Each structure stands twice: as structure tokens, then as C-alpha cells.
């Protein structure tokens, strides 16, 4: 017979009271777990979706000129001297602190060429990175390989191009590998060629006009990445496509804050349930505690019995609360997102946190009742019989 045996026997006897404490804690812990898991799952889902929107960082040469171009409309027709970045410089992007978050780097060389007597913008790109940078592109035909071009829909219409045609530019003849379906962007007006082909056509070997970066921003502040790339490429101007990034982060942050506040309230109420139930339990056990004290249990022994009981219930509630929280998230996730089959993250840290939270709540809320019990005058307690 030890103090633990006494506590365990008492728990078995007072199942209803134990169940109240257990339920109070499970509700608190599972709510917190459900909120956190839901946020994590949604954040992951939103990030995955936003990554499909393509590049979110632009790298352009530093210039003293202001743009006379707005929404694809060029004003005044003045052509400033175009500045360029050395292509090999781009390798430095892979050396930044958050390089793990860099999903794709798309170098681009731009230059004007004359096709059928019309000036047209030729863009050289790395087509290997297109699935990440332009996931919405649908070519009729193929993406171009060496000595081929892909034509934007408007460019193809104006220049009368179709897949299989040849097109002459700068004394070279290239084959049209495909036509892009209409994107509604500036891409519709452009001819695209593989980067080396375009560089040699434009006489810009080893140089690029700009680069696009697709950053996976799950857990990385995009501003930090912009800063890191700026430091790696001092000659370039690095910009985040802020509307996309900021918007999604703010929405998530609001949701996160509301969820944390709600979790806190539910956990607090759970703690109150534990407190009230444990107070009731201690009052019910006045006589018993009197006997314990009379036969020589120290105050600390009484506290240990009560806190051990609370600890056992809390540990069970922590584990159950974690599992229930995951289940709840799984059940309610379809109401928050239209995506199918979102994975619910199983995070050992969260499981440990849930156990810790249950123990913290259960023990904190039991300290006062345990103190009351320990301070009970044995003579008074026995008289209560």
C-alpha cells in the first residue's frame, strides 16, 4: 500500500467525479489540438494552392529609369537601354539561408526581334521550370526545344503562326513548336524560345534580363527571402509580388489569432471544470482526509494523493484529447476547405504539447483543492463525520 495505491483506488471508486475532470480536460485539450491542427492543415493547403500561382519574387536589374509601362500598355514608345544580369549570378540564390524554400528559379532574357516585318518581343526561358513558374500555361503543340519557338496566342494570330510553321528572325529560321492558349496576360503577345536559343539570337549570351523565383512560403516570411536574395545579388532589384503573399498571410494570421483566443477560452473553462470538480471531491472526502491525517499522513502526503489522482486523469485526458482533436479536425475540415484529401499533420510536438497542456491544466486547477485538503484540521475533519 502506497500513496499511489490509495489514489488509484479512490479514482476507481469515484468514477463519476473522475469522469467530470476527464471530460473537462478532454474538451479543453481536444479544442486546442483541433484548432491548431486545423490551422496547420489549412495553412498547408493554402500554401500548396498558392504555390500553383507561380512565381512570387521578381529579380530585375537595378535601373535609374522609371517604367512607362502599365498593365501591358507602353506609353510614349520610348525604349530605354535595357540592363542585364549575368546568368551565373543566379546560382547565388541557392546559397541563401532560406534556399530550401526556393522551389524554382526562372531566368528570362528579353529582346525585340522582327518577324514578317513586325517587331515582336522574344523571351528566352528555362522551360524545365515552367510547371512551377507558369502552371497555368497550356500549349497547343509542344514546349520548344533548341531552334524552336512557342508563340503567345495574340502573337500567333497577328503573325499568322501555327504549330509546325517556320519563322525567320535575325537571319535565323526557327520552327513553331506550339501556340499557347490564351492566358489574358502579357504572355499572349510574346514569342518564347529556350534560353540559349534566345540568348544567341539576341546576342546576349550568358546574360539575362530578369528572373522569377517561386518560393514555397510555408513557414518562411517572403520579405526575409527578398532581403536574402538582395544581399546575394547586390546588382539586382528584388521584389516580392506582395499582393499575393501578404494577402494570404494576413488571412491566415487572422484565423490563427481567433483560433488561439478560442482555444485559450475553452482551455480556461476546462480548467474551471477541473477546479470545481476537485473542490467538490475534496469536500466529499473530508472524513477520509481526517482519517489520513489522524493516522499520521503529512500535509504533503495528502497533496501528493490528490495531485497524483489529477495527474493520472490529466495524462489520460491529454492522450484522448489529442486523438479527439485530430478526429474533430478531420470531421470539420471539409467545411473549411473545398480541397479533397487534405492531409492532417501528425505532429509529435503537438501530441507532447497536448499531454503537457492537460497535465498543466489538471495539476494547476488541482493545486488549490489539494492545498485545502492538506490544510484540513484532522480534528475538525473527524468531527464532520
Amino acid at each position, binding site marked *: 500500500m502506497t500513496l499511489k*495505491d490509495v489514489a488509484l*483506488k479512490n479514482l476507481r471508486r469515484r468514477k463519476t467525479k473522475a469522469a467530470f475532470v476527464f471530460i473537462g480536460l478532454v474538451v479543453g485539450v481536444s479544442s486546442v489540438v483541433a484548432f491548431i491542427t486545423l490551422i496547420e492543415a489549412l495553412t498547408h493547403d493554402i500554401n500548396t494552392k498558392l504555390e500553383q500561382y507561380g512565381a512570387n519574387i521578381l529579380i530585375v536589374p537595378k535601373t535609374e529609369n522609371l517604367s512607362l509601362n502599365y498593365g501591358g500598355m507602353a506609353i510614349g514608345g520610348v525604349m530605354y537601354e535595357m540592363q542585364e544580369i549575368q546568368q551565373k549570378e543566379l546560382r547565388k540564390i541557392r546559397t541563401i539561408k532560406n534556399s530550401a524554400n526556393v522551389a524554382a528559379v526562372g531566368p528570362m532574357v528579353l529582346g525585340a526581334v522582327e518577324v514578317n516585318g513586325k517587331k515582336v518581343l522574344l523571351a528566352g526561358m528555362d522551360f524545365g521550370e515552367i510547371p512551377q513558374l507558369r502552371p497555368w500555361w497550356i500549349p497547343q503543340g509542344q514546349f520548344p526545344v533548341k531552334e524552336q519557338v512557342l508563340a503567345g496566342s495574340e502573337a500567333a494570330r497577328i503573325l499568322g503562326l501555327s504549330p509546325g510553321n517556320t519563322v525567320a528572325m535575325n537571319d535565323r529560321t526557327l520552327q513553331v513548336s506550339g501556340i499557347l492558349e490564351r492566358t489574358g496576360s502579357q504572355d499572349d503577345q510574346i514569342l518564347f524560345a529556350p534560353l540559349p536559343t534566345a540568348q544567341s539570337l539576341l546576342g546576349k549570351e550568358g546574360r539575362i534580363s530578369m528572373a522569377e523565383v517561386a518560393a514555397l512560403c510555408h513557414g518562411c516570411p517572403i520579405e526575409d527571402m527578398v532581403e536574402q536574395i538582395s544581399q546575394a545579388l547586390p546588382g539586382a532589384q528584388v521584389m516580392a509580388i506582395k499582393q499575393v503573399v501578404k494577402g494570404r498571410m494576413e488571412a491566415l494570421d487572422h484565423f490563427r489569432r481567433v483560433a488561439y483566443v478560442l482555444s485559450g477560452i475553452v482551455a480556461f473553462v476546462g480548467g474551471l471544470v477541473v477546479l470545481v470538480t476537485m473542490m467538490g471531491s475534496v469536500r466529499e472526502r473530508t472524513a477520509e482526509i481526517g*482519517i489520513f491525517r*489522524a493516522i*499520521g*499522513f503529512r*500535509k504533503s502526503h495528502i497533496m501528493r494523493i490528490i495531485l497524483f489522482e489529477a495527474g493520472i486523469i490529466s495524462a489520460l485526458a491529454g492522450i484522448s484529447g489529442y486523438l479527439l482533436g485530430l478526429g474533430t479536425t478531420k470531421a470539420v475540415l471539409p467545411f473549411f476547405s473545398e480541397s479533397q484529401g487534405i492531409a492532417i499533420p501528425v505532429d509529435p510536438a503537438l501530441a507532447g504539447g497536448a499531454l503537457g497542456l492537460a497535465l498543466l491544466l489538471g495539476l494547476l486547477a488541482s493545486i488549490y483543492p489539494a492545498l485545502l485538503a492538506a490544510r484540513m484540521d484532522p480534528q475538525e475533519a473527524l468531527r464532520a*463525520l
Partner: protein
Amino acid sequence: MDFIQVDNLVKQYGDSPATVTAVRGISFAMQRGEFISIMGESGSGKSTLLSMMGALNSPTSGKYLVEGIDIYNLGQEERADFRRKSLGFVFQSFHLIPYLTVLENVLLPFAAGKEKRAKKRALAEEALIRVGLAEKGDRLPAQISGGEQERVAIARAIVNHPSILFADEPTGNLDSKTTREIMDLLKHLNEEGMTTLMVTHNPECAYYAGRTLRLSDGFLIEDEDRRREGGNGRSLGEIRARVSRAETLGPFPAVHGRFSRSMPREAEEG
């Protein structure tokens, strides 16, 4: 040095002017192996005196020494240790823990100690044998009779071989047959050397002790010492004989109303 020394103990409850004085300056000494009964009407202060001697209640003034140690100079936790190691309590209402078996109830004082499990169990089984309940260790208190519950309470009180056994109306809830069995048991334990202090209303029970202190209104009004030289009152055989003849010799002296100063002469001689 006296084994126990009670020196001018006073206990008051409540604040002035509504102060109630339960014990008004009681002094006496007790030797190792003695069996003392304390008698008195309800409210005479006997239970308060017992609770102070059991270190459950602090006196308003006065001293209480056990083997020269001033018990009320000890801190609360040291007093708890003193109760656990040196005292055994038997309560009127048994005060068993209903969800623990008989054996577990007897083991309870060890729950707060550091003894080895096997040793605890051996001592508890020995205590149950001494009270005649060796076969009922796995029963719950609700599954045994009142007399057996009292025996369990006695086993729990003696399991740690205490220096002193305190009993507060140990037969208050028992019929006369069971009362005699329990008193026989207490007397037997006392004959084995257990120093015993018992509060009782029942003059028949008081007769088992070698000495009776009578209290009235918080005062010690009589200290009747029936001990013989070198002994501690009557032997269990003598007591049994007297008790069995109680019906023909007339009842034991009443405790209500005026106190008898001693047992009736014919009882003493018979």
C-alpha cells in the same frame, strides 16, 4: 521520568466573550504499559483531552510530554510523523476507508512510510491475526460485521507497533457481546505491553482499565487507581468473571448523574 506527562492542559474554543472552555487545567502522569480509561458525561472534555494527547488538537495552554518530548513544541508535520510512528487510534465509528479492503485498511498507516512492501504486508497480516481476522483480509468493510470492523480499526491502530494506543468510545456502536469481545482484545493487547488510553461512557468497559480518570465540566475530578503492586489492574480472567456475574451482582456504576467513587464493594470483593 514518566512515560507520559500531562501538565495543566487547558483547551478553549472560540473567541471572547463566547469562549467555551472544554478542558480546565488537567494534569496527570501515565507509565508505560498502563491502561487508563477516561470517563465523564457528554461535554465533560474527555474527547478533547484525548485529541490533545493524540496530537490532533493543540491545547490553549499547558504541556504534554511523551518520553520527555514536548509534543506541542513540534511542527505540524513532525506531529504527523509522531502520530504515524508512535500512536495508534481507534475511533468510535471505526473510520475505515470504505473502498479499501480489510488488509488495505490495516496497511494504510504504511502508505506514507518507506518500509518495504513485503515487510508492510507481513506486519499487516500479523496485526490481523492478533485481532482474529486473518481470514477476512480481502473483504471490504461493508462486507463484515460492526464488531469485525472495530477489530480492523484496532489492527490498523496497532500495525506499526505504536507506543500508545488511543481509543475513543471504541465500543460505542457495538452490542454488549461484541463490546466484551473488543474489550477483551484491548485488555489482551495491554497485557502484551500496549500502553492504552481509552475514553468511554461505559462503566463496564472502564472496569477493564487499571485506572480510571473521571472528568466533569473540563476538570479531572477523580483518579481511581486499581493497580496492584507490580501489575496493571485486574487480570483479564478476573474481569471476565466480574463481567459475567454483572447481572446477579447488579449493574456497573452509572456514569450519568453523580459519579460513583469506586466500584461497589461487593463487586470488588466478589
